[in-house]
């Protein structure tokens, strides 16, 4: 099944913040943080991300699990970056030299990625996909793209179910995947069949939509309220981004 996003911060104030504000805040915060160069501004951004995680009451366990996955990838950078960037040598291993610049860059990347992931986990991940979709629509994202997103989300489970059914049918007739032509051919057939069924399904869904008066325009039921709490939150995010910008551009 689809993994549900990590538990929404249950505390009243955090949960009541307008999803549109959360999306805009995520965009503003992440684009600013991505371009910061100085350790001070990046550190400030990381501190703010931690504050967000606390404010939205993310569960420590699920956050650590996700950060672990991200940092596993970043560990690779620590192996290669110091040795591939020219600069002042910190450590020599035979012909290889780890440069100071390389270490600093790897360090900056590590801080930035953790800050970004943490902030996105706090701001975006707890939103249900329908809510996020409607919020995007209200923010002016093209209706067709939003509908594509929502329909994909709606039918992904069905596609998975269908694929499992096909796999099971194959397994029941003794199919075991191996590294040979028969396996590749079988998987190609399974995928082809899945595609055919998906097209078929799409046509029937379209018919059902047309029967209920659909003429190409989607209407949304969602209404969002820009309450005082949301405005205060927006102001706080703006202040935090401004503060880290001040650190970045300070002499």
């Amino acid at each position, binding site marked *: 099944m689809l993994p549900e996003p990590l538990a929404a911060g249950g505390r009243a104030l955090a949960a009541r913040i307008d999803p549109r504000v959360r999306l805009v805040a995520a965009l503003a915060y992440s684009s600013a943080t991505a371009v910061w160069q100085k350790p001070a501004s990046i550190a400030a951004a990381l501190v703010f991300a931690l504050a967000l995680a606390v404010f939205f009451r993310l569960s420590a366990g699920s956050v650590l699990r996700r950060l672990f996955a991200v940092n596993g990838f970043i560990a690779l950078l620590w192996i290669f970056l110091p040795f591939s960037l020219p600069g002042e040598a910190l450590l020599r291993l035979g012909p290889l030299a780890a440069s100071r610049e390389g270490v600093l860059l790897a360090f900056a990347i590590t801080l930035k990625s953790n800050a970004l992931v943490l902030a996105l986990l706090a701001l975006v991940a707890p939103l249900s996909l329908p809510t996020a979709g409607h919020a995007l629509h209200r923010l002016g994202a093209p209706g067709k793209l939003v509908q594509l997103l929502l329909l994909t989300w709606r039918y992904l489970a069905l596609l998975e179910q269908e694929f499992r059914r096909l796999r099971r049918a194959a397994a029941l007739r003794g199919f075991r995947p191996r590294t040979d032509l028969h396996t590749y051919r079988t998987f190609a057939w399974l995928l082809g069949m899945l595609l055919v069924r998906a097209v078929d399904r799409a046509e029937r*869904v379209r*018919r059902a939509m047309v029967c209920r008066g659909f*003429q190409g325009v989607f209407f949304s039921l969602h209404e969002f309220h820009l309450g005082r709490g949301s405005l205060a939150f927006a102001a706080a995010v703006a202040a935090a981004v401004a503060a880290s910008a001040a650190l970045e551009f300070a002499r």
Partner: protein
Amino acid sequence: MDASAPIIALQGVRFGYPGAKPILEGLDFALGPGERVGILAPNGSGKTTLFLLIMGLLRPQAGEIRVFGKPRRAEADFLEVRRRIGLVFQDPEDQLFCPTVIEDVAFGPLNLGRSRQEALAAARRTLAALGLEGFEDRIGFKLSGGEKRLVSLAAVLAMEPEALLLDEPENGLDSRTRLRLVEVLEGLAIPRAIISHDIDLLTALCDRLLTLEAGRICGVDGEALHRHVHAHRLGDRPHRHGPAA
């Protein structure tokens, strides 16, 4: 349009899918006001095709389709048909495509041009009428088969159709959900045509039975008396069976 004129009238309709011989040939069909028609016919005899033709999702290769007294030929003619006639599809999975139940049920009313509040009110009213209170924010694909069926019916009823076309509504329902569906449909005073393999369902919900043979509609006059033998525990003791539901 006078009160006794048929809502739906098909005359001499022919339709065939590409590369096959016509599935419907010289078909006549009519649904009058207040009529409840059941269609019982084998798989592949063109029942679903008949409904798709009425809604304008397929076009006949010959013959005429009149709905609400007007001939319907082009896509634009059928827009009104789709607003005023509700088709409940065989597979509710095709019909429920919105993230949540309330959005699915409000989808039709919104397309009819209702305001957000009106659409929400219509959706809530319909859900309540079908005993689906509290389903508003349930996720569409997480409903059980029976719930999906009832929600897809609600999605069509929320548009307040003047006639209903139901394609195998009992398909995939257990006996309890089926009973509930029958109760719901019995309570609706909307003219309807029902396709089904379930003779008990059709006799409970329809006044007139039809079948499809060689691409044509045939009436079924009178009742063919026949006898069933069935077995169950304590069958040798004096007992009664409940009414056909």
